[in-house]
């Protein structure tokens, strides 16, 4: 008897333990409750969470180090997180009232959700009192920092348009020219496939990498208005015929084996997609300007030897979109937690005024192959070893008729997750363009 009873209760315990494990993951953010200060650092110090990954991590840390040595009494403590882990961590921390003083982010829909929960400071008045801080930055960078006419974040770091990269060595080997139109792209696909080279590299498991294709194709065919309607929450905004047309084009490219074999299991975080381009296994890659630096450091003489080509996404035949338009990150964003103490907020504001995009930081960003969002850096860019690429990025960003923010950053996290999910299925050919439109229309304005 006792044998049996013990076995039963062991199972019950076991089973409940499993449920508890699943439940604990969720409840972790609910039960910890709001703390009074929201200080991640403790004491009078302000806290600041930064992203790992070079060269950005060192540059962010150096700025904080310079600030700390100039202000030994009001220090900022940093904690570094990996990109995708940070996205989850910061949301959970803010929800639990444990946010750092300075909240690093991408602006747009994520920032809006913080604003709606009253978690970040309104910086509108501060910027009008400190006009010098505002006026030196690209005006276009403030769009994603603004929610309902008020500024909630300080634009920082670099401008990052999405660029069409190509491997010149591969193009020479196959004897073809870089594409000037969507038709050219589709014509190039069989040429490269015949040589055993993938036309496009893609880190499809990360999903937002696939999204860049949709962003450009929709913009080139129908202009920036269609997504603007989605952004503004207009009912059935995805039903525009241009969307179905664009989705069909994407699936045509997938069906023509336009992307590297196994793209849906490649992650962008591992930089394997970049490796495919610089090792010549793929001919082209649509990716953010931030990949230039890592391709330069990891790709041997690929960048320094001039084998990397780059261009803005080509126009689509008969499309209405302006070919100067671009998408990407108009900047990165620093907000101040509304739960921080007054002293911490002052430290953060002082950091914004004196350390963010200081001359030393600007220099570091430029030498890493990025364009800081500060006006009047043309001469410094021209003097850099990456002058040609930096001028291209500067011109792309500053001459774009519209610099659209990445869709997943512009939309709310809820809509963005549905978007990424459906994009992954679209590339997997497991849903049709019509199903995609129907699924996406359901989350408009959510």
């Amino acid at each position, binding site marked *: *008897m006792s044998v049996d009873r013990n076995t039963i209760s062991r199972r*019950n315990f*076991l089973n409940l333990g499993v449920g*508890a494990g699943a439940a604990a993951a969720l409840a972790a*953010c609910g039960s910890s409750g709001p703390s009074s200060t929201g200080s991640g650092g403790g004491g009078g110090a302000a806290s600041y969470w930064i992203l790992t990954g070079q060269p950005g991590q060192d540059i962010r840390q150096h700025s904080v180090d310079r600030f700390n040595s100039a202000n030994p009494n009001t220090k900022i403590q940093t904690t570094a997180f990996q990109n995708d882990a940070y996205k989850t961590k910061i949301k959970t921390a*803010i929800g639990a009232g444990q946010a750092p003083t300075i909240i690093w982010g991408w602006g747009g829909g994520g920032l809006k959700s913080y604003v709606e929960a009253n978690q970040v400071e309104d910086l509108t008045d501060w910027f009008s009192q400190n006009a010098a801080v505002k006026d030196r930055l690209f005006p276009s960078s403030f769009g994603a920092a603004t929610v309902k006419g008020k500024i909630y974040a300080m634009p920082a770091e670099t401008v990052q348009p999405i660029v069409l990269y190509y491997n010149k060595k591969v193009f020479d080997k196959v004897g073809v020219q870089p594409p000037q139109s969507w038709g050219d792209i589709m014509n190039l696909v069989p040429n490269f496939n015949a040589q055993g080279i993938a036309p496009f590299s893609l880190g499809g498991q990360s999903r937002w990498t696939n999204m860049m294709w949709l962003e450009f194709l929709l913009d080139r065919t129908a202009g920036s208005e269609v997504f603007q309607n989605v952004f503004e929450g207009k009912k059935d905004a995805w039903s525009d015929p241009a969307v179905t047309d664009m989705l069909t084009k994407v699936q045509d490219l997938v069906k023509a084996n336009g992307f590297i*074999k*196994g793209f849906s299991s490649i992650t962008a975080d591992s930089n394997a997609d970049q490796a495919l381009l610089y090792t010549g296994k793929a001919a082209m890659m649509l990716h953010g300007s931030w990949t230039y630096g890592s391709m330069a450091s990891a790709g041997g003489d690929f960048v320094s030897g001039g084998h990397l080509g780059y261009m803005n996404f080509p126009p689509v035949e008969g499309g209405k979109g302006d070919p100067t338009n671009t998408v990407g990150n108009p900047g990165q964003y620093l907000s101040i937690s509304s739960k921080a103490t007054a002293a911490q907020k002052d430290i953060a504001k002082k950091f914004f005024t004196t350390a963010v995009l200081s001359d030393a930081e600007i220099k570091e960003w430029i030498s890493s192959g990025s364009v800081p969002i500060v006006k009047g850096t043309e001469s410094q860019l021209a003097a850099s070893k990456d002058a040609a690429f930096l001028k291209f990025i500067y011109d792309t960003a500053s001459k774009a008729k519209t610099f659209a923010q990445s869709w997943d950053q512009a939309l709310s996290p809820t809509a963005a997750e549905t978007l990424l999910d459906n994009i992954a299925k679209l590339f*997997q050919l*497991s849903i049709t363009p019509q199903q995609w439109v129907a699924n996406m229309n359901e989350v408009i304005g959510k």
Partner: protein
Amino acid sequence: MTTLAPPTAPVGQHTTTTTTTASGGRSGPVVWMALPALVMFVGFGVIPLVGVLALSFTTWDGIGAIVPSGLTSWRAVLSDPGLPHALWVTFLVMILSWAVQTPLSILIGVFLAAHKRYRGFLAVLYFIPLLLSSAAISITFKALLDPNFGLATGLGIPFLAQDWLGQANLALGVVIFVVSWQYIPFHSLIYQGAVRQIPTSMNEAATIDGAGRVRMFFSITIPQLKYTIITSSTLMVVGSLTFFDLIFVLTAGGPGDATRVLALEMYQTGFQANLMGPASAIAVILVLVGLALALILRRVGGGSASESQMEGA
């Protein structure tokens, strides 16, 4: 899990009379001994569970205020075609990984149970996968199976250059393979111990009666392992509900949603889409499924109390 289980001292008592009196006389101390486990269990098991149940009737984005919203979250979850799909994938992973692991674990367990030195050495080697974290295993397999830079290119074997994690059926197969690779050592260990407890007199008697190895395996070893099989199966089945880290790192639920199990669906709904209400509802469903499975296995396995597997009974 062992810390949560109540003391099992009476197991192995040979005569029923001593067992009864012993457990009756010990009931006082036993309750006290269970107290630390109970405190942990209530604190980290029951209270979060109640919290999740409460959250499933609210709307919360994880950042702002928690707003009670009745059945809204439940309606959203139950009408979402993602739920039956995730349940189906969870079920597939559960059944297939059980079907792969159980026979292999029994065979390896029986093989290792024999007292031979070289088998002891092999047992140590077999045990290694269990020492690695799921994340490390996933990253390793992901790198090995990469169609462009993986094992196929390294060894020059074109057959291995499949799109292992990029095609729905292959990806599911890989998940089951990796799960099995990780957990077979553990279950083999359980079976090894159980096989060693089978009285040698049974096998000797069977040998005298002229039974061959295969006959002995099916007529003696398997029936004697009945309770071990049930224990091991319970661990596999209920454990498979919580596969998260491995799948998250290996495929992130992809390609598309081909390997998106219930636990992953819960994570993505809660922490990526910021829908804590529906995510809590999924968590409750996960708990209910786990409960139901454990009860079913209990029915199947421990049903008749009179049946004894002890020698001479």
